[in-house]
């Protein structure tokens, strides 16, 4: 499918059609913190951001998700699942976050299908949006893609200032074009050349060289290394790195009783950095201290996810690098792993 051009002033029209007809989930700025929310109009949407504070994974895996309501009736227990998801356009996902969603597809739509994830995933069209610039924490390049990559998205918008070059990459993407042909014009050779220049320009902006060669293999022998204890001393045990991560997906299931007759069963994000993570009923915790928890996180990002699914568990978005209160920096860990024994 050939690339098209969408003028900047047409973007609002395009988004409003989704906001009014179906559902639009798009970046919203809340006092400087950017998160993806369901919006009612394009007026609420911002494109004026670099890396959103929160990745859009919460659209597919909400921090709190109702699995069903339960009630004790005359015929026994009744379970009422929530209504099915709406047809949705997820607009403005950065390439790293789209890759995060792809990584999570293996978890929630692989060998064990998760109905909640899959329902939303099937009904959502992902419109990727190229990055404005490279941030100091960014290292997507180490994973073989970059700030304009559309891989995993249904359509990909590359920002050229006054217009976007739009590529339609899947059948869902083509359906978008077919429904809104009036808004798109053909992309000329100049547009495509400008997009290539933009890509090349962004590729020159990276601050960090992160070389992953040999890291995964080395991690195998590092489980008992004293390195983890040294690293974990810094950790304050908060959930920032995991909650902002596009691929972290641990959850806990809790019941919220509402009176004697029933209640709700909720799936809530959990974090391997929390002291009660994997705490057994007996009181035993296989990860009793910071050392074990920090090690688990880096093993998962740099090894376990790949071992299970053949795709890295880190996408190089750099959120944890930027936001960790103790400046625990995964790119430093990657470098350290090669050095330590």
């Amino acid at each position, binding site marked *: 499918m050939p690339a098209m051009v969408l003028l900047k002033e047409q973007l609002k029209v395009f988004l409003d059609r989704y906001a009014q007809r179906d559902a639009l989930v798009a970046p919203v700025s809340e006092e400087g913190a950017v998160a993806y929310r369901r919006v009612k109009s394009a007026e609420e949407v911002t494109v004026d951001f670099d890396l959103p*504070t929160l990745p859009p994974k919460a659209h597919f895996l909400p921090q709190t998700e109702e699995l069903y309501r339960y009630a004790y009736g005359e015929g026994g227990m009744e379970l009422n699942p929530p209504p099915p998801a709406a047809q949705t356009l997820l607009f403005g996902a950065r390439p790293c976050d789209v890759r995060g969603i792809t990584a999570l597809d293996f978890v929630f739509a692989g060998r064990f299908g998760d109905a909640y994830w899959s329902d939303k995933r099937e009904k959502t069209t992902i419109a990727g949006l190229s990055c404005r610039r490279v941030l100091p924490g960014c290292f997507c390049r180490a994973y073989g893609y970059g700030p304009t990559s559309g891989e995993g998205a249904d359509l990909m918008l590359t920002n050229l200032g006054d217009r976007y070059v739009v590529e339609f990459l899947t059948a869902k993407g083509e359906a978008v074009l077919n429904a809104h042909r009036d808004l798109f014009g053909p992309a000329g050779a100049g547009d495509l050349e400008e997009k290539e220049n933009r890509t090349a320009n962004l590729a020159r902006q990276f601050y960090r060289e992160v070389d992953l060669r040999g890291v995964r293999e080395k991690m195998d022998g590092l489980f008992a290394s004293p390195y983890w204890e040294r690293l974990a001393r810094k950790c304050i045990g*908060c959930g920032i790195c995991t909650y902002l991560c596009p691929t972290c997906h641990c959850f806990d299931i*809790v019941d*919220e009783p509402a009176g004697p007759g029933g209640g709700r069963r909720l799936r809530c994000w959990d974090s391997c950095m929390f002291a*009660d993570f994997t705490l057994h009923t007996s009181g035993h915790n296989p990860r009793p201290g*910071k050392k074990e928890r920090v090690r688990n996180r880096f093993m998962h990002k740099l090894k376990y996810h790949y071992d299970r699914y053949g795709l890295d568990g880190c996408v190089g978005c750099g959120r944890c690098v930027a*936001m960790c*209160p103790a400046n625990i*920096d995964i790119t430093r860990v990657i470098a350290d792993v090669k050095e330590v024994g």
Partner: protein
Amino acid sequence: MNKVQDDLRREAARLLESGDAAMVIAWEEGSDAARTAPAFAVSPAEAAGLVWNPFCVPNLVKYLLDYRYEDTKIAVAVKGCDERAVNRLVQDRQFPRERIVVLGLPCGGMLDRGKTLAALGPRARLNGVEDRGEAFVLVSDQGEVTLPKEEYLLEKCLTCVRNAPARADVTLGPGVSNPARPGCDPFAPVRELEALSPAEKSAYWDGQFSRCLRCYACRNVCPACNCKECSFEQAVPGWQQGAGWISKNTSLAENYTFHLIRMFDVAGRCIDCGECERVCPVGIPLSKLYRKVLKDAAELFAVPTPGLTAAEIPVLGSYSPEDKEEFM
């Protein structure tokens, strides 16, 4: 400041070599020029990597609690504001003062990371810093920049109460002038909120707390939140989950419950270090919440910022016949 950094390294090495401290908690170079990371030196060689510069923002005192069941002495680098955290832990009987070696660092203020990076350039490597009283001069591999304190300091430093520890075991470097600006009112943002109607206040905090992720960074970094186990994450069996203080559900109501309970828990004990606001990933202005409590305590009981002196009893942990009785 480079000389003070040398002194810090030398003193840390001496403490570790002599066995006067088993560990020195201070700062090391961070991911970029305007950032430091906590460092935990256990050998003289590691002491050589410690730094002192206007980016040593993290309050390190709470890390002591990770070693509370050991019997070794631990040295910790302490700025003026951080000393209140030392007193907090000692007064709350969480860590014995005699196990702490306070390395006091007279502080000319800490620089705002974002503003500094914009001035310095994100690729710069820091080579040296000079505190010229009214400004910091930063020397990097990209050249030299002068950052006037009035414009570049963290807001909390402009209302600094005391910029050097009063009871350090070792003071490193000479005294420097307090960066506080005359006329800067720490409670100005609180007054603005107090002037709102209840509905406006409610709308304001609804907007803030609705984006809380309950990552608990504010609690975990807080020296006044020093319970061994937190009531917010007590493991309770499923059939008792409704009886817990708070659900894992991140609804607005649960988020309010978390923040307001925490606010009441640290009332009269919050040392106003501002760490909660610094670490919040979604920019909730938590210091407005905690300064409201500080302001109330100051107005009702005429007490200074908690933790300023070693001997005080937290105001809500003590009783005086002179206490106001507005609602009794």
